[in-house]
């Protein structure tokens, strides 16, 4: 790894000051589990790293039954996985958190960082999409809210402007009784990036039964399987033939690549298989 400078601001205000006078080769770091690996592989060469980890305003997870879950930018994947309300109301997020890397890395890696890295296989992306998450951005020009679906604009690309920082991600509480799950397929049972990830949520909301499906590692930007979701809307217990149609619809809305982890064809097939498995599991959990 090449030499670099690091600043550790103690407040957001201080962070903005540093970022406003820093050059173009500046990287913002929370957990650093992606950044340091990219630096070690010489994929990025930041001259300055702004480490956010001392900023109190970015820490913690809060839950409010009327609003939902707010995950601070510094909340680690383990903190989220161990949060009692996450297990109770956001099981797809908890599944995803526990499928992420291993215990040691989850102590460093942050949920918001996973969204900011915007790597298509990021395990936090699909669950945050099915829970209709919203990113809270702060910058010298003020605050703005961007849905996760729009925050990520492509592989390793997001809408953050220079000097802007994600403060938190907010996941509204699903309306009514709900169940969720995240299924991840990798090349082995632990410590792998997803070949395919499927997040599924079922809610009995104020109206009819609603299904939400999102996929990881098979599209350049976050995706919701709208056609598949519409096929299921209002159905209390879908039969196998409906599940097959839903799987077809799910496969139609993804556009994976081939790489050394899996071929495009396998990924498409697995979107179908895992969608069916995820729906069955959610219905079991419901």
């Amino acid at each position: 790894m090449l030499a670099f400078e690091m600043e550790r601001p103690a407040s957001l205000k201080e962070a903005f000051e540093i970022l406003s006078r820093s050059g173009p080769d500046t990287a913002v770091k929370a957990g650093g589990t992606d950044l340091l690996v990219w630096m070690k592989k010489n994929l990025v060469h930041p001259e300055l790293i702004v480490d956010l980890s001392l900023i109190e305003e970015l820490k913690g997870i809060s839950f409010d039954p009327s609003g939902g879950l707010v995950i601070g930018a510094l909340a680690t994947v383990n903190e989220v996985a161990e949060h009692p309300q996450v297990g109770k109301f956001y099981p797809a997020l908890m599944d995803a958190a526990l499928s992420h890397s291993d215990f040691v890395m989850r102590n460093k890696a942050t949920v918001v960082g996973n969204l900011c890295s915007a790597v298509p296989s990021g395990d936090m992306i699909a669950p945050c999409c099915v829970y209709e998450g919203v990113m809270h951005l702060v910058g010298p020009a003020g605050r703005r809210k961007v849905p996760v679906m729009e925050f990520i604009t492509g592989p390793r690309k997001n809408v953050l402007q220079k000097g802007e920082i994600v403060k938190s991600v907010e996941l509204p509480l699903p309306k009514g009784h709900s169940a969720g799950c995240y299924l991840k397929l990798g090349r082995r049972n632990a410590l792998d990036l997803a070949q395919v990830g499927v997040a599924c949520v079922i809610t009995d909301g104020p109206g009819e039964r609603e299904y939400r499906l999102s996929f990881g590692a098979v599209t350049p930007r976050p995706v919701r399987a709208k056609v598949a979701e519409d096929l299921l809307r209002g159905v209390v217990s879908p039969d196998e033939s409906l599940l097959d149609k839903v799987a077809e619809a799910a496969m139609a809305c993804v556009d994976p690549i081939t790489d050394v982890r899996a071929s495009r064809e396998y990924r498409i097939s697995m979107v179908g298989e895992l969608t069916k498995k995820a729906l069955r599991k959610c219905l079991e959990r419901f």
Partner: protein
Amino acid sequence: MKQTITNDGVGKWVTRQYDVEKAAGTLQYTDDLRFGPELLHAKAARSTIAHGEIVSIDVSEAMKVPGVVKVILGDQFVHRFGLYLHDRTPLAVGKVRYVGEPIALVVAETEEAAEEGALKVKAKYKELTPIFDPVKEATDNSILVHPELESYEHVPFIVPQPGTNLANWFRIRRGDVEKAFEESEYVVEEAVNCPQIAHGFLEPHCCICKEDPATGYLTIWTAAQSVFATREIIAAGLGYPLNKIRVIAPPIGGGFGGKAGMTIEALCLAGAMDPDVKGRPVKLHISREEVMLTSWVRQGYVARIKMGIDKDGKILGMKNTFYFDTGVSAEYGANPVRSAGYTSTGCYYVPNVWTDSYAVYTNKPFGGAYRGFGLPELMGVMETIIDIAAHKIGMDPVEFRLKNILEPGLKTCTGMPMHNHALPKIIEKVVDKVGIQKKEEPRRPGWKRGKGLALAIKAPAKPADASSSAIVKVLGDGTVEILAATMDMGQGTYTSFAQMASEELGIPVKKIRCIYPDTNSHPYDWQTVASRSCWAMGMAVKRAAADAREQIISLYAQYWQVPPESIVIEHGIVKCRSAGKAEPLDERIQNGFKMPDGYYHGGPIIGTGSFVPPDVIYPDNETGQSPKSVVHFTVGAVGIDVEVDPATGCVEVNRVSSGYDVGKAISPMNVRGQIEGGTVQGISAGLMEGMYYDEKGRLLTPDFTDYKIATIKDIPEEIDSFWEETPEELSPYGNRGVGEHSMISPAPAIGNALFNALGVRIHTYPFSRERVYKAVQMSKTGEEDLWDYPYVQEQNYKKAKKEWF
């Protein structure tokens, strides 16, 4: 009469040496050594293309990086190195031959400056067509990786073919295979292939080299398995006297063959021996990515076996063609080719044999030693094809194996009579423990369950004159130091040696310590490889310990004025019951005994022992025949019970049972550790491991993000390991090699179990989820064979959509 008594001798369950320091984190590895501010750091700039002539290398920008001392290019350090075949230069000279080949070595005051310098070295190439496919390149030879092959030095038992890409061609010619096929009721011909795989040891290579500018003496601290082989290879490559090179190996963090021979030391020496470095120590500590790219890998393998079988199920003839993808260098990899060749009928008796085993150069990282040394490759094919043959002739695969087993007295394919072994008994136990012949319901709803068996065999693959020697010193406090230049890299050899010394000296194991190797203090040993150490070095240790014992007894006999036969050493106490004497070993062992006549006799007790295999003769280069081609074989069997999720192709191993005929378990705790560890490594290789390249020869799996090894969540809950003890004739205690064998056959056993579960034969390793899913889809259409030709991955990759933007 035995004159020693100990509770920790051969065959006892004792705790392992150096485990306390490892657990506490206080054991010092090479990277932990400190050299102060005079230490310089080196980093290689590497080729970005797979094959090309070097037009120019511009180091001017690199030299401008603050802290960079020197950039060394290949034409400034032209030396060819190699264990068996001198085909490797540490830096590319004139040509690059694979992506990742070092083209320049940047030496700098800090690691960061060296890295920045390396990034700023700019090379221009005239690109040549690279070659990747071992079968095509072995037969086509229109593009040569080493046109200079004829000029390379090599040992007489390696047979390169100048003008081709064949770095070695090993042959067996026995009987008349064509006639055997004519007389056969059935002829089965099948092919299997596997990709290169990597060792995945924890500690990346690290070494520090220093030249004394006044005398030219070289000192090398390195993470190496074999200090003496490192020294010899360097001496031969540099044309340097042995006595001017000192190699010190601190404890190493795993090897599995990946730190055998000479690895990165010569590259580091290119820095340390540069005049501008002025005798400062230079450290080269390569990253995981560089380990994957530029140290040994297990060779890729494509094999075809044709088998003729009579109406009773007896194999009459076998014709084997093996292509090992040895990458850019065969300096070490030429020998697994031979090892697979001289074992090319597996555990079976075959009267007529024709084998061609080739090492084929390609523009890829180089093949070398990996646990099993040619035999996981061979048996990965053999045990698959034996299973296919059994099904084709309608015989139970267990029965077919037993019918053709290499019984004691029958000749191996090299003409050597097989020694005694307990393989049939082991097979029976494995079959029983796993219920190989019983169909059981899957444990997971909707999954498919299957069981498979595979046999294992391996001899220590080494030169006929691979010798060992040891020194056993008894210290003034009654403790013992063993100087045996074996590297204990986790396999537990030092514990075994301590148990041998305890057995011979009557001293408890906790008072015995083995010291990590240094060519200046330790006597010679060839290498820590080939599952040879407890056998060959074990003999030297036994002799040295017995020598020390005889010296002690003789001194006490004189001291006490009693017959030597009346003396015993019991738990570290020397006793003569008839004379009523009992004294602990103390400083008199060091300083001498004041004898009854008033004079001092004795002085420090040093026992010595040496060993070279007395009766091995190299197989004939034309026919592969020899009265005794290897020292012995260790045989065994693996039974495995797996389940497949048809929806994803995911394979879970329910249980596995492995048994080996180890002759004698010197250190049962380590034997169990070796069997369990190798079984896990074999399962991992079988299910997920493979190195893949894109169409330009760039490694797609250069790190643990994409080179996957089984985690604890991927291994079976039940790993049953057991052994039989049919004594080996020459060895110190009847023991045979056991370090590598457990790695050999888990993979083919899984393949056979998958066939049992799905009815589809997968001819290509590994059995990744994607590949098994493909097999599941084939099973629905009644297809029976899935074979991904070795480079299909690269071909698919060429056509595939790889990026979104």
